[in-house]
């Protein structure tokens, strides 16, 4: 079973993120880049499936030059090879454009299964897995908290608000995973050394057959019109319990439309 894991480099969750004034896109230079946390679970799940069923794990990343740090981390965890789609023309691509570019890149890699985290911590749209499935015609197995593979059958437990659904499909399939699924391993020092020698293919737009008019700021269907800094935090409301604390709390929550 050959698996592709889509991995995204995102700004460090612990740091404050900024939008650039020039083109209203995320300022990726001002903060440290890290592997999107949910993608670590995706890499881990792919490695476990590989350990159980054989095959190869390929990392697919679209992003600027420095995203190679994140690719290297995935390789040092144990993935076999990587494909990096990097081209200045991709800058500013929205989810729709990104899914188009990723689908094109996927076409260059032989695979049975694609695994992704359910969302990235920067954009948090959680739409790429579904868009990829639509674009590639693969089955969509989203929000997986458990994945089982038997021949060409892939069965997942889809996390829901109240429990889980069992969903099954034939390969090729696209699986998005939630953090319940596993505990990602740390890379080892030997893995770091080995990662240097693993094949890393770089694709430009032309290499992947991506039409420039469909990606980047101008090729995106959505755009940021304007943005403003988050207003400073307001002082909270203190509810003093004089025997009626519960009622007051409930009233407050109701007034905020939380209950």
């Amino acid at each position: 079973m050959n698996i592709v894991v889509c991995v995204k480099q995102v700004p460090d969750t612990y740091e404050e993120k900024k939008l650039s004034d020039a083109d209203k896109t995320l300022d990726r230079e001002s903060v440290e880049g890290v592997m999107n946390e949910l993608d670590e679970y995706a890499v881990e799940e792919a490695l476990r499936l590989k350990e159980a069923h054989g095959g190869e794990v390929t990392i697919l990343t679209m992003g600027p030059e420095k995203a190679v740090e994140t690719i290297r981390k995935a390789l040092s965890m144990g993935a076999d090879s990587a494909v990096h789609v990097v081209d200045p023309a991709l800058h500013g691509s929205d989810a729709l454009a990104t899914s188009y570019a990723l689908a094109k890149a996927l076409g260059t890699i032989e695979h049975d299964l694609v695994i992704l985290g359910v969302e990235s911590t920067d954009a948090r749209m959680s739409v790429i897995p579904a868009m990829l499935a639509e674009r590639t015609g693969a089955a969509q197995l989203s929000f997986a908290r458990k994945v089982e593979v038997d021949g060409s059958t892939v069965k997942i437990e889809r996390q829901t608000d109240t429990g889980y659904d069992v969903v099954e499909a034939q390969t090729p399939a696209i699986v998005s995973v939630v953090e319940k699924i596993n505990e990602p391993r740390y890379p080892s020092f030997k893995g770091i050394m080995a990662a240097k020698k693993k094949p890393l293919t770089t694709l430009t737009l032309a290499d992947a057959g991506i039409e420039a008019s469909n990606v980047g700021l101008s090729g995106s269907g959505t755009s940021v019109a304007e943005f403003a800094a988050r207003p400073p935090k307001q002082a909270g409301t203190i509810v003093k319990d004089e025997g009626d604390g519960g009622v007051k709390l409930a009233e407050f929550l109701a007034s905020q439309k939380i209950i």
Partner: protein
Amino acid sequence: MPVERVLPSDEACELINLVRELARDELAPHAAAHEERAEFPRETVRLLGRAGLLGLAYPEEYGGGGMPYEVYLQVLEELASAWAAVALAVSVHTLSCYPVAAFGTDEQRKSFLPDMLGGELLGAYSLSEAMSGSDAGSLQARAKRDGDSYVLSGTKAWVTHGGTADYYNVFCRTSDDARGGVSTFLVPADADGLLPQAPERKMGLRSSPTAQIVLDNVRVPADRLIGNEGDGMRIALSALDGGRLGISAIATGLAQSALDAAVAWAKERQQFGQRIADFQGVSFLLADMATGIEAARAGYLAAARRRDTGLPYGPQAAMSKLFATDTAMRVTTDAVQVFGGYGYTTEYPVERYLREAKVMQIFEGTNQIQRLVIGRHLLSLR
């Protein structure tokens, strides 16, 4: 704040990133509770072992990381800034591999080192005795040759990982010759008659177990003798040079955490209507702390680079250990001062740092012994 490091290679940078991630997620959140309960985090150390951190400074052909000491020590410093006892575990384990790696026969290296460096095992180094500390040559434990084996008897003391280790480097007397009568044995923990005693109840580094080991006629095969009979003191002293650099790096990391905590506090704490950091009396204290740490770091790195290029580095290791641990003592004491009364409570980590720093002036050669080493070196130069 992460320390900005000058590292010799991309691999070293990625190694430090991995260590920072492990320190942030697996060490820092658990240090205080384990210290409180005096509980050794065996599984955490195993996790570091699996990541390859227990054999970094040894050759790759035996399963080590092939990293220069310059990098290994910075790894220790990073670990120590999150949890000193865990960094100490890595340092002591690294020390415990040294006799076989440097003095073992090819056969011994091939048969023992891969497991010792593999990350699953934890080692101990057992030189001191109750009546033999700074005067290591006065040790009394005995090893008697009996056919194809040696029989070890006596009591060793202050053994880090005593009762937890998987194997012990045990220094025993094979003759009465004061300097030439000591030999080194690599003894598995499950050897009959090797009896770890109850752990010491310590002031700090409580999550690192320290215990006496009673040797009640422990029989080990003769191929467990490392080096020749009588090489023991030479092995011990040579191993300690590297061990002292380990302690220097750990002391530096500990001091760095104390400084980071003190700076954060001084920027937050308001008195007389301003941050206490804006009072020169406080900022000068912080400046002196930072200066000491920077010098301690530079000192251990300079000694490590001597070692990495094959130059003698014993006196530099002694200077580095002396300076870094005295600095850690001063910096952690001053960190408590910056925190004021809060620093004296267990609500904040700085009182623990102070307790942890104290032993660093004592173990791996007291700082008085370090001065002796440095003084003798100076006199031998002319």
